[in-house]
């Protein structure tokens, strides 16, 4: 039986009747039209469906929409601030950290959460923080570059040669 779901999505209150077996990914894409959240493996392995629930990365393909009652969900559509894309998005763009782009929304959201909790992560900490997001195009090198650049930018500094991207 459908149940009422009330939650906040990208800062706006949402209310909807959803079936218990509807995943958060389906709810976001089909009921709210927020198609930036991608279906990948649909089994919780690949991270393409990553969104933030109360600020923490969650796999929306294996999260029931109803489990998010009263929670605050942020999708890739909600990370831009004041009409300007998020510094993490800018860094992904600058470093060419997306090729086909399918994993990018999930990676950006994992990265936003990672840098909020740890503004200057080590290489190992970046790898651990992004361990749930698979990219099959880039080989991750440019993604790592983008995370390092975003960290510097978020810390309010210009990227230095030592910490910046390697674009060869």
């Amino acid at each position, binding site marked *: 039986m459908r149940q009422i779901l009330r939650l906040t999505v990208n800062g706006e209150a949402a209310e909807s009747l959803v079936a218990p077996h509807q995943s958060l990914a389906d709810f976001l894409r089909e009921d709210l039209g927020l198609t930036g959240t991608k279906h990948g493996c649909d089994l919780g392995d690949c991270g393409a469906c990553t969104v933030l629930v109360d600020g923490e990365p969650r796999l929306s393909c294996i999260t029931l929409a109803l*489990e998010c009652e009263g929670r605050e969900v942020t999708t890739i559509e909600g990370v831009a601030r004041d009409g300007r894309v998020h510094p993490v998005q800018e860094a992904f763009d600058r470093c060419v950290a997306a090729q086909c782009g399918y994993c990018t929304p999930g990676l950006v959201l994992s990265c936003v959460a990672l840098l909020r909790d740890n503004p200057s992560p080590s290489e190992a900490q970046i790898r651990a923080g*992004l361990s*749930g997001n698979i990219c099959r195009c880039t080989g991750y090198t440019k993604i790592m570059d983008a995370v390092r650049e975003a960290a510097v930018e978020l810390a309010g500094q210009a990227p230095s040669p030592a910490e910046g991207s390697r674009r060869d």
Partner: protein
Amino acid sequence: MMRLPAFDYRVPREVGEAVSLLAEYGEDAKVLAGGTDLLPSMKQGLFTPKVLVSLRGMAELRGIRDAEGGGLRVGAATTLRDVARDPRVLALYPALADACSTVATHIIQGTGTLGGNVLLDTRCTYYNQSAFWRTALGFCLKKGGDVCHVARTSPTCMATASADTVPALILMGANARLVGAAGERVVPVESLYTDDGRDWNTLRPGELLTEVLLPPPAPGSAILHRKMRRRQAIDYGFLLAAVRVDGDLAGGLTDARVVVSCVGPRPVVTPLGDLVAGRPLTAELAEEIAHAAARPAAPLTTHGVMPSYRKKMIRVTVRRALDTLRGEPSAAV
């Protein structure tokens, strides 16, 4: 796209209500904690419960509390990340923190729960597949068939215990609090498992795991956790080993115990008190312990990684863990 089958969804606000729901629905109900194993399994058609009983409404099942007389009480719905980064867990039970930090991925560690890990379904390469895949081969013993594809003459299912936290919890002497309609009981985590991967746990119908109880660590004991898997993220292990030694490493041990998992339906516990009593932890003794730990384990073709390799790696993994304790860099295999 893989959709979930339809089910009803209930959110009890207290344990008593949850237990009543589980008693009411019986076999038709499944408990939903983090959902990181249950929901993918449901998408693959491995479970089709009529009702999911969500634990999200019960704050009492989350969090880590000091236990009377020392030790900690971990709510069953506490996430693996919250266990792994708790300062008390890091100080008292570093092997448990290690084990939680090796589960799947960063995201799943923040979603999956300790209770869910302790009661993780047994796994097998012939079982954890889509309905389409399983239909093509013919169903196995664990899911509606009459033959085990791993051991064709076996009367029981050989799917393996795969929970990362369990070997360390067993060596810590952890207990589980189980609450049912008839009351509650506290049992050792070690006693939760059986030798049949199909009917793999000893919970009574309708019982809910509410807490994992960690006793104070024994003075002079050390526990290490090790995991082998194909990738260093995402994958379940193909081998888990935890090692405990008690006593003075240089002067003489009083006891040792090894738990090996991912090799059969239940973790294999090898007590080694007689072997180690009074002996210092030398390279020679480490090798003897490693051999003794590997002897009873009989890995089968449950994992897509050769059983002979997994068997050999038990010895190597245990010896390397002991080398770490001895402060020695590990020699080559």
